[in-house]
């Protein structure tokens, strides 16, 4: 019997990156396949292709042994393949039945057939173990249960393969437990699952088979339940590149440059955050999505107003109310979204680099083009930026080089504190190593660096000290000798979730 789904030598390029390079994958009926890999390994791209969201550049997909060409999500759905996004696609103003049948509501004489909707919705809900009245409004359910509703919705379209993208990323321990039971039950009923996760403990307790991606390629497979083991998975995910990302020696930290005392951010106004960063120190902030890390950085940078507390730079309280005030005090922020927030894509490399510092180099408000040119031509070699010239439009650069232009923009103002949000997201491994080297060099020159990252490898290799956030507060700090994935995950999950250390 042919496998339910077979993807054969799938490749996909995006401007500047090869997201997938000859990746193959098979899923049998009733199988739970875990797909793991670092951020940027190509997992998201692969699952989007499998679910018909994007077409591959090359390669074929077979369903039940027959060649399938998905022109859109509908095509994949009609073949029984459903994608369950990390962010739920539900309407919280409707009830459960309304959500399950959204877009394909049964009708009678042109009107909604509500009794039938409720009857059928109840059937699907029961199948995943949710004994709830289908007339319950969705908003009354917890996130975990809403996710189960999403699964019921997928099943009601007669899905035979569920692709679940980091399904537990915002679930509590108990909700995760329930989800595991549902997935195991579905698997026994012959439904296949592709489970994408960063949490290796989860993979170990759930998966029948593990497929590893690295840098857009197949990096290995663990074919049996018995073979699934932590060390082996980490080794396959990180692979040979572990040397290049190896730890640099840390610098002896100087005095406190950034002191944050009981700061309240708009995302979690009821909680306070306190932390210190010393000169020459690289401090990381880890945590799950939604833990309030980005909001902490934007509040420190004055983009979102602080609801209380103080921020001091070198002992002077400033608590910025706008980015101008933050910059004036010597704070720089390399934001998460390079294209939307970090850069002005339609401007040149040179104009982007001088955007912050240009005002200081001006005379009576006139731009000093000579100084601008000098700046760009000092920064390009110093950061080894690959660009045809400094008048090249920045949109034509690769992700790594664009990120270096953002860094150059901030280094030009000679900051005292450098904040970075996901500093290497979507950047290839070579440029990553260069950015890490650069950050270490800057720390050596006395800069205080605070970075947020969801990339475990980055957190472990870059941070001199790590703070882990959980639901708006700092759940704990880890020194260099305590930095292990297990410790980070335990704190990120709220410090009580023992499953993660399994």
């Amino acid at each position, binding site marked *: 019997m042919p496998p339910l789904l077979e993807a054969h030598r799938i490749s996909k390029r995006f401007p500047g990156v090869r997201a997938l390079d000859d990746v193959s994958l098979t899923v049998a009926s009733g199988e739970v396949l875990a797909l793991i890999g670092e951020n940027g390994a190509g997992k998201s791209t692969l699952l989007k292709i499998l679910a018909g969201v994007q077409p591959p550049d090359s390669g074929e997909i077979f369903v039940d042994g027959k060649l399938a060409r998905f022109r859109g999500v509908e095509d994949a759905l009609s073949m029984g393949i459903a994608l369950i996004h990390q962010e739920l696609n539900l309407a919280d103003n409707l009830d459960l039945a309304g959500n399950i049948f959204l877009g394909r509501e049964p009708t009678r004489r042109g009107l909604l057939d509500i009794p039938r909707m409720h009857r059928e919705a109840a059937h699907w809900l029961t199948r995943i173990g949710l004994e709830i009245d289908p007339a319950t409004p969705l908003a009354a359910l917890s996130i975990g249960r809403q996710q189960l509703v999403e699964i019921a919705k997928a099943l009601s379209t007669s899905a035979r393969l569920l692709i679940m993208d980091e399904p537990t990323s915002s679930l509590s321990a108990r909700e995760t437990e329930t989800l595991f039971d549902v997935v195991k039950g579905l698997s026994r009923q012959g439904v296949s699952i592709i489970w994408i996760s960063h949490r290796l403990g989860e993979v170990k307790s759930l998966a029948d088979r593990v497929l590893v991606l690295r840098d857009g390629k197949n990096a290995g497979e663990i074919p049996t339940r018995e073979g699934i083991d932590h060390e082996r998975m980490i080794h396959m995910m990180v692979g040979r590149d572990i040397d290049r990302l190896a730890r640099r020696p840390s610098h002896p930290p100087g005095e406190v440059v950034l002191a944050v005392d009981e700061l309240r951010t708009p995302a979690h106004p009821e909680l306070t955050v306190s932390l210190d960063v010393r000169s020459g120190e690289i401090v990381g902030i880890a945590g799950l999505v939604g833990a309030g890390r980005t909001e902490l950085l934007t509040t420190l940078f004055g983009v979102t107003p602080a609801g209380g507390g103080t921020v001091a730079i070198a002992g002077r309280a400033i608590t910025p109310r706008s980015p101008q005030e933050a910059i004036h005090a010597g704070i720089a922020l390399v934001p998460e979204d390079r294209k939307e927030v970090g850069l002005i894509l339609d401007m040149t490399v040179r104009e982007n680099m001088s955007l912050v510092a240009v005002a200081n180099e001006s005379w009576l408000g006139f731009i000093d*083009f000579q100084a601008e040119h000098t700046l760009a031509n000092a920064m390009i070699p110093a950061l080894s930026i690959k660009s045809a010239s400094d008048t090249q439009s920045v949109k034509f650069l690769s992700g790594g080089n664009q990120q270096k232009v953002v860094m150059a923009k901030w280094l030009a103002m000679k900051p005292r504190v450098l904040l970075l949000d996901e500093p290497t997201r979507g950047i290839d491994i070579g440029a990553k190593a260069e950015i890490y080297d650069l950050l270490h060099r800057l720390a050596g020159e006395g800069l205080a660096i605070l970075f947020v990252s969801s990339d475990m490898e980055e957190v472990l290799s870059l941070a001199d000290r790590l703070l882990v956030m959980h639901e708006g507060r700092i759940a704990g700090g880890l020194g260099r000798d305590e930095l292990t994935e297990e410790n980070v995950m335990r704190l990120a999950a709220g410090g009580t979730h023992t499953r993660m250390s399994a």
Partner: protein
Amino acid sequence: MNAMIATLGGTLRRLISPKVIGILGILAAVCLYTAVASDNFLQAGNLERIVHRTALFGVLSIGVAFVIITGGIDLSIGSVVCLVGVLLPWLLVHHGWSVPVAVAFVLGLGAIIGLLHGLLITRLGLQPFVVTLCGLLFYRGVARGLTQDNSQGFGTAFKGLRSLATARIPIFGDAGFQLPATTLIFLVIAVLAAVFLNRTVWGRHLVALGCNEQAARYSGINTGRMTLLAYVISSTLAALGGMLFVLDINAAQPSDFGNFYELYAIAAAVLGGCSLRGGEGSILGLIVGSALMVVLSNMINLVHPRYQNIEFAIIGGVILAGVIADEVVRRFARRRLAP
């Protein structure tokens, strides 16, 4: 030295972008066609009228270009032209204000109107379209109310002040083409605007904000203040334009003076390469765009007078064709650059 060459190259490239070359080509074609089809086109008087009207509409267009570059829009220009156009003679003739006070007052009024628009947009977060649409209705209403709908003019007085708009400078001697004074005023404003946009920090910030407001804000640019500035410039230049129009025509009927001028100004800016998405615009392109609007209208008058009643349709069609051509070229370029 290298830097200077690079800078000069950059400036030249910016001045003579493909877009400007395209619109210059259209302008040349329309001029050529009109010159061949009508003997009157190349006569000194006609050419004077063309550069004169280009200057008057160009002043409005430069103003609105600043707003368009920030990604906003100013629909109130025609009504500001009207308000200033009736206020200036009304204050001078009916209320006996002195010339410097009246001129300072109407220009200051323009600045305050712009400030008000800018504050409503940046502080209250209202949409530029809505704010300036209300302005469009409000200022015309005020102009009509103040004057009881009576036409305002200077009669035979204030010749000195009026010469700002009516004087002709005999650059080739007394015969033939004489340069309208308005053209000089316009050129001074155009050069100032070009220097501001291309050579100053504020100009750079304005363009950055128009390209990507978020990124500009995260780079420490005071985006609110720059947006405010753009609206002040737009309304002040509208006031200056209104003053020049009334000095030139010597009669302002409150119910229709300046009607649709905001649309001429926006059309000229768009033809000249401003993108309504913001972040793009060149002063040279805008001058050519203004000239094209005026020459098109002149062509219809001279060559096809019986089509005068569909003048709007013809101008609208030409602008649409220009914008479509631009988009097609852009898509073609993007496809070639895509990896």
